[in-house]
């Protein structure tokens, strides 16, 4: 069994360093080269251990000035849960009015992360 090197582009800042990440035979992080700053090293480690992303999408609004409210996960969630999280979010709806920052789904998929509104949607007056 031997070590393995994989290449990736750092996405922390616009420089986009080309990283070479060395993993052990179990795929565990050993070291990284090519990063120009410590944030790149942290990114590489997380990326091969448990890659995470913020999920921005939208939720249906009932009785609002708009049919949708844009939302995001408050923090990054594991990348592998993104499609499952989308299922939960797509089957949800909220009643207007919605305030920016309002928690619309608590602790999605038990990640400890809330889904929050990223804009205001006023109620529609009929």
């Amino acid at each position, binding site marked *: 069994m031997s070590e393995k090197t994989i290449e*990736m*582009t750092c*996405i922390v800042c*616009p*420089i*986009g360093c080309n990283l070479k990440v060395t993993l052990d035979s179990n795929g565990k992080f050993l070291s990284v080269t090519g990063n120009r700053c410590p944030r790149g090293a942290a990114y590489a480690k997380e990326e091969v251990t448990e890659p995470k*992303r*913020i*999920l*921005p*999408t*939208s939720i*249906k609004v009932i009785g609002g000035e*708009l*049919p*949708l409210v*844009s939302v*995001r996960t408050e923090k990054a969630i594991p*990348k592998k849960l*993104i*499609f499952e999280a*989308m299922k939960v979010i*797509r089957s949800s709806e909220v009643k207007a009015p919605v305030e*920016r920052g309002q928690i619309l789904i608590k602790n999605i998929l038990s990640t400890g992360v809330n889904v929050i509104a*990223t*804009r*205001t949607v006023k109620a529609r007056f009929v």
Partner: protein
Amino acid sequence: MKKLEYDVVILGGGAAGMGAVRGALSQKVSVLLIEREASTGGVLNQCIHNGFGVQVFKRELTGPEYHEMYLEKLEGFDAMYETTVLDIDSENGILKAISTDGVYEIKYGALVLATGARERPFEALRIPGSRPSGIFTAGLAQHFVNLENHLPGRKAVIIGSGDIGLIMARRLTLEGVEIEGVYEIMPYQGGLTRNVVQCLKDFNIPLYLSTSVVRVHGRERLKGITVAKFANGKPVDGTERFINCDTLIASVGLISENDLVEKNIEISSDGGAVVDDLMRTNVDNIFAAGNNICIHDLVDFVTVEGEMAGRNAARVAKNEKMAKRIGIFKKGKGIRIISVHYTTASDPFKMYVRVDHPMNVCTLRMNDTNLKTVLNAKPSEMIELTFDPSKHNLKGNLVLSATEVKR
């Protein structure tokens, strides 16, 4: 005709226009914002993804958050929504605008153009074949999906690898649309690397470089497209491939919106309004900022430019004496875009340039002076330059160039 009068009038309520409102208000003048939509924000409203605000708010926000948080800083200005400017009489400082309740004649002390950009349409590519339904620009598809709750189709191909195209590849994938691939005619990507990683690699969406569409198929609805490899801007015979799809998303560039003012002010060969380091056009009391001077990567840059344009417009409206233009910037070898074309000899300022091809290590020079060394320079990523006029000889043309450093 109703008549109004303001110190500073701002055309466009997107990021640049909101910045200009803030800049002008800081100088205690009367401010009118004119916006064609029913609210401020411009394209930020439909850019629901994160990546905004790292410089202005020191944290990563989505477009709608950036819009609302910035708007909360603005107090004490008038706004006319659902209003379009018809004509600008720059000699007399009067514009005509039409709103839902009639035509207005508005006298201004200074004007800020913050009209942004429009998408280059698919038709501009002059691709043979039919024109069925199912062809959208990326921003239009984004508007449908993010604001109106409509999907453009079921199986899509994205033409062009600009940032909005990459963002839409991810967005449509999340909403259950199959993205067959992203096709880029150039040998390098059009958008930011972080978007190629987060939007394509994360979802195993292939990016085909030096490849683009050569034919459109279908009568009523799009049935498919033919793509081919490209070399030197021409399709290579024998490399054609048919792709079955019902949707084509075109992300083939943005064009600065200056139709209204092209007869009044100097426009560069790239279509942007030509400004100096004060964001002033060749007309002393008309300023411009944001995507109508050149296409920017980050909204944060646009906000800062807008603030400067608004502040300086207000100073002109108050009859302050402003510095004269002294130096002229020219694009030299390796440079495609420059954001500022003239310099006054006042304070150090920031300007942006784009290189015309990717370079691993490149040196940016002004005439014979080294300004900056840049790693991984790409046309898709703007380079920020801080220019201090006091440190340079401003006589003659100031030629900016970028050359690759061979290691």
